[in-house]
């Protein structure tokens, strides 16, 4: 290169010049890599939403041979006959989609409450007491959370549909009620919350719990009056993660309800109330002879909104809960 004349270097290909520039100034290469990775993640996460939006606003009979651009953008400008934003109202007319969303929210809320209460007790025990077998037991609980849900499906399905005899009595039929979903959800999502809360509760100084017990609480009272309030970021993290996981859950949501139009919150135990969550709502737009792809896409977007709102609101707590956790006495 030292012998190259200016004329020769001008004739070098562009990529070679770029490479030499990057060697002289590595910052450029790093920045390039950063933008590439960012772009990759943005495309893979945001493109599905863009695509849902495009599908939703395109009338169903026009959905064929879709390009990357929405169909209403044509060579001659915008074609209003191919742009159908009313679809977001139509979804609620064809199927009472809001009741499915409400069901999902109630299921998520119930599971979150159950998980937080049980995980708090377990987290207290694992985080603050020493007893033989603590490590193996914790490991066992974590291992259970890695089991594939499919492994539980058949036995649970038989149990929840009343096909298992226990001492001559058949098990209660809870298929189609919230319990058939809340129970497996709680079991599956408990280990993560136990793990989060164990680390948080373990960090509260012993002196504070002792002080609370001397002042007149029981161990349980100290947990609820002192340890949990001081672990608020951890409890919020565990709660939000559980809520979102349940809201997004597919497997048991799909299999533990019959998908018929739910009756609103009438009875938590009667299985003819059809406690169908969002998944079933979206599939409800699948007719026997027609697939309303635009409605399914619109419903999917509507269904995502509650989680988006929750994450935006709780973002700060989640981040501080996942990263920090240290507490000054």
């Amino acid at each position, binding site marked *: 290169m030292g012998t190259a004349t200016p004329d020769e270097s001008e004739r070098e290909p562009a990529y070679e010049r770029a490479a030499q520039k990057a060697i002289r100034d590595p910052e450029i290469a790093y920045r390039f890599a950063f933008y590439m990775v960012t772009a990759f993640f943005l495309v893979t996460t945001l493109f599905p939403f863009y695509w849902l939006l495009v599908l939703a606003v395109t009338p169903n009979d026009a959905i064929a041979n879709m390009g990357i651009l929405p169909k209403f953008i044509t060579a001659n400008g915008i074609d209003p006959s191919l742009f159908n934003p009313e679809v977001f109202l139509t979804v609620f007319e064809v199927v009472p989609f809001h009741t499915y969303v409400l069901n999902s929210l109630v299921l998520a809320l119930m599971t979150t409450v159950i998980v937080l209460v049980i995980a708090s007790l377990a987290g207290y025990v694992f985080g603050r007491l020493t007893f033989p077998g603590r490590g193996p037991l914790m490991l066992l609980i974590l291992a259970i959370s890695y089991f594939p849900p499919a492994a539980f499906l058949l036995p649970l399905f038989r149990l929840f549909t009343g096909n298992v005899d226990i001492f001559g009595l058949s098990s209660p039929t809870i298929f189609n009620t919230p319990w058939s979903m809340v129970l497996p959800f709680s079991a599956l999502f408990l280990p993560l919350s136990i793990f989060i809360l164990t680390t948080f509760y373990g960090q509260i*100084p012993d*002196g504070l719990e*002792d*002080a609370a017990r*001397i*002042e*007149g609480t*029981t161990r349980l009272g100290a947990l609820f009056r002192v340890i949990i309030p*001081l672990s608020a970021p951890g409890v919020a993290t565990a709660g939000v993660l559980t809520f979102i996981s349940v809201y997004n859950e597919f497997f048991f949501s799909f299999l533990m309800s019959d998908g018929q139009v739910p009756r609103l919150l009438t009875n938590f135990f009667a299985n003819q109330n059809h406690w169908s969550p969002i998944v079933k709502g979206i599939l409800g737009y699948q007719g026997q002879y027609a697939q309303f792809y635009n409605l399914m896409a619109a419903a999917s977007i509507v269904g995502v909104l509650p989680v988006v709102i929750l994450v935006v609101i709780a973002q700060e707590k989640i981040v501080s809960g996942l990263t920090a956790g240290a507490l*000054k006495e």
Partner: protein
Amino acid sequence: MGEVNLEDVTKRYDDVVAVDAMNLDIRDGEFLTLVGPSGCGKSTTLEMIAGLTTPSDGTITIAGRDVTNLPPKDRGIAMVFQNIALFPHMDVYDNISFGLRLRDYPTDEIDERVERAAEVVQLEGMLDRMPDEMSGGQRQRVAIARAIVRQPEVFLMDEPLANLDAKLRVHMRTELQRLHKELDTTIIYVTHDQAEAMTMSDRIAIIDGGELQQVDPPLTCYNEPNNRFVGGFIGSPSMNFIDAEVDATGLRTESFDVALDPEAAGLSPGDHVSLGVRPEDVYLTEHSGDVDNPSQPIDLVTDVLEPMGDQIFIYLREPGAESSGMDADADQLLMSVAPDTDIGEDEPVEVVIDRDRLHVFDGEGDAVLHGLTAKRREVER
């Protein structure tokens, strides 16, 4: 009222015995200090009285009630912790009233009691502050207010002043004594600082290795230590110990002899004992005019001098020995003299020991004699 009795209280952790068959009777209204080196079991004892730890054996009674298996909240006690342990998510008012609110007191009474407690510890006008906005001393006072507001029968204090700076510690020491006078409640106080134990207590319980060594008023512990450990632990700087052998006419050490009738002291010739001498009981011969029963003069050489302002500590060594600095294990004699004494390092001196104030400990370390003269105090056996 507030008397506390420990009967054969034992705490074992796996194969370690933290507290060994402790018997202790604490009177109503008494300020009793548990003192001892780190890990001696004093905090464990306090935790067992508080109910935070369950004893492996034995019975604890508070105010005549067997509380051995009661939870802390039902024992009628309050506690102040070394790390203060204020609830960081509550303001001062909520911290102080925590126990009262748990017991569903009416709001008026809570207000009134919190006001009064805040007055006692001089925290008026700070009730709406958060703990992290306060200084160490103020926080400690909140912790004390939290303890007194419930008017318990017994206060437990676990090194409450250990985390404060030196000046504040001395100040809080007098505050605590004032508080004890004002409240007239039993206080059980744990510390490893023997100065705190000496200045505040009605009685001191000295603990070592989980066993009670002596329970007596501070000056008795100082003047008549039950054993070598107590002699060495109480008093700063600590007592000198010199190995000696008993013969027909007295005690013989490497550098000097002390006259004593061994028969009268219950010793027999050939016994190995150790002599305990406090630094203030060693005198330069020229200053020993007031000593009634001085020992024979001993020739020594000054080694290191520690001028403290109100007195000078002098490490003495034998004339032939090498200087060994301030190594505590070295065979040295520590004495204290008045601050205006004209003395330098490496000077030969002649000292005498006040025989009235010599302590003799037998081979097991138990005290045999306090004072070698007719004024000696027999040790009760």
